[in-house]
């Protein structure tokens, strides 16, 4: 449906962070543009002083969808800091008109397809996360745990969301007292609420369905097991003193310091956004609960 010949202008707020206000903006952007076809969409950043770089994956998910409906997207009036952030993570490569160079403190904006070469995907994270100057020294096992955690999120999006692509973007903070990385995955697939409520034949809120999905062994797959990846991710986050945020539909749950905190969203995100924050130099980074006897696995 072509709404108007005039460009559809959306004002971006002063700050877009991984909190209720930030996710509300992203959810509303998705809904406000959902029916647009053959139009021009302008995102006006003139008031925006901060935009979390890792949330570019969520923004990209929406804008890619908007473009798929033959709309044209323009990012306008980017202030210096936001322009820098979007340049460094290569987001403007896709949605801007300025050729740019890569920055060492980002995991560049990337669309990962369901048929992505897995070796290449692994190499991407290895290169963009671990093989950067100033990165803290990490053992191979610690690196592996981070990679497995990230790919568990990726697989969840592609299988449960039944979507073709998942979008990723990250920000690395190597010079913090405790270096850390924030990575956001985003997709426009089926929401967790839609999956869980269909499976349980229930009508639970977005938050309750996210909490259900986080419980050990819970999965919406039929006649098979699953639901382990997210639980392992939680365990890693606990050990690492990191955090995990999940936004899906009208749900927003943050897992921090071993507890789930539920937030109320005014908006509704028609897909899922997962942000994982991990410390990169942590002597407790991976701890095996006990040595596994390989003769006692089956």
């Amino acid at each position: 449906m072509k709404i108007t010949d005039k460009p559809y202008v959306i004002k971006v707020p002063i700050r877009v962070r991984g909190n209720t206000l930030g996710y509300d903006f992203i959810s509303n952007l998705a809904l406000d543009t959902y029916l647009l076809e053959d139009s021009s969409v302008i995102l006006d950043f003139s008031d925006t002083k901060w935009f979390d770089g890792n949330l570019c994956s969520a923004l990209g998910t929406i804008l890619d969808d908007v473009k798929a409906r033959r709309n044209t997207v323009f990012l306008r009036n980017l202030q210096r800091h936001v322009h820098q952030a979007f340049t460094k993570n290569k987001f403007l490569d896709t949605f801007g008109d300025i050729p740019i160079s890569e920055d060492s403190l980002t995991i560049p904006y990337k669309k990962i397809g369901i048929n992505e070469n897995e070796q290449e995907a692994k190499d991407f994270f290895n290169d963009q996360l671990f093989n950067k100057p100033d990165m803290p020294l990490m053992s191979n096992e610690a690196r592996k745990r981070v990679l497995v955690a990230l790919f568990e999120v990726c697989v969840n999006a592609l299988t449960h969301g039944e979507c073709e692509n998942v979008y990723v973007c990250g920000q690395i903070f190597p010079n913090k007292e405790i270096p850390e990385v924030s990575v956001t995955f985003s997709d426009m697939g089926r929401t967790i609420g839609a999956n869980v409520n269909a499976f349980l034949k229930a009508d639970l809120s977005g938050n309750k369905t996210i909490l259900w999905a986080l419980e050990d062994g819970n999965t919406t797959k039929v006649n098979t097991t699953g639901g382990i990846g997210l639980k392992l991710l939680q365990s890693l986050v606990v050990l690492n003193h990191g955090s995990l945020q999940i936004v899906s539909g009208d749900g927003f749950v943050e897992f921090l310091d071993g507890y789930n905190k539920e937030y109320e969203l005014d908006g509704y995100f028609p897909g899922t956004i997962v942000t994982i924050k991990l410390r990169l130099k942590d002597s407790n980074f991976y701890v095996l609960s006990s040595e596994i006897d390989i003769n006692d696995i089956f």
Partner: protein
Amino acid sequence: MDLMISQVIDGNTAIAPSKGESVHEKIKQALIDQETVILDFTGMELMTTAFLNSAIGQLYAEFSTELLRDKLKIKWISQSDAVLLKKVTDTAKIYFANPADFEGNINERING
């Protein structure tokens, strides 16, 4: 029979569940033929639980725990991967012991 996972999937990275299907089929056929299967994880760099569920977890729907314990062996698996695999097999044992109960319990907890 020795089953080198990296050869079956033609690589050292196993992320998507679809990649586990070929591994699962080979194990299943060998078990039907009453062979002992030695799962060789040499060279595997990265595996997700989604892959392990598909490759190994679903065997518990088709064979008894006793048979799997008797016929499946492992070699050259890293400790961190062994943790993932143990988690997968433990969950599968509980689930496939009685899927209806498992899902019924979940429904009961949610809906009261």
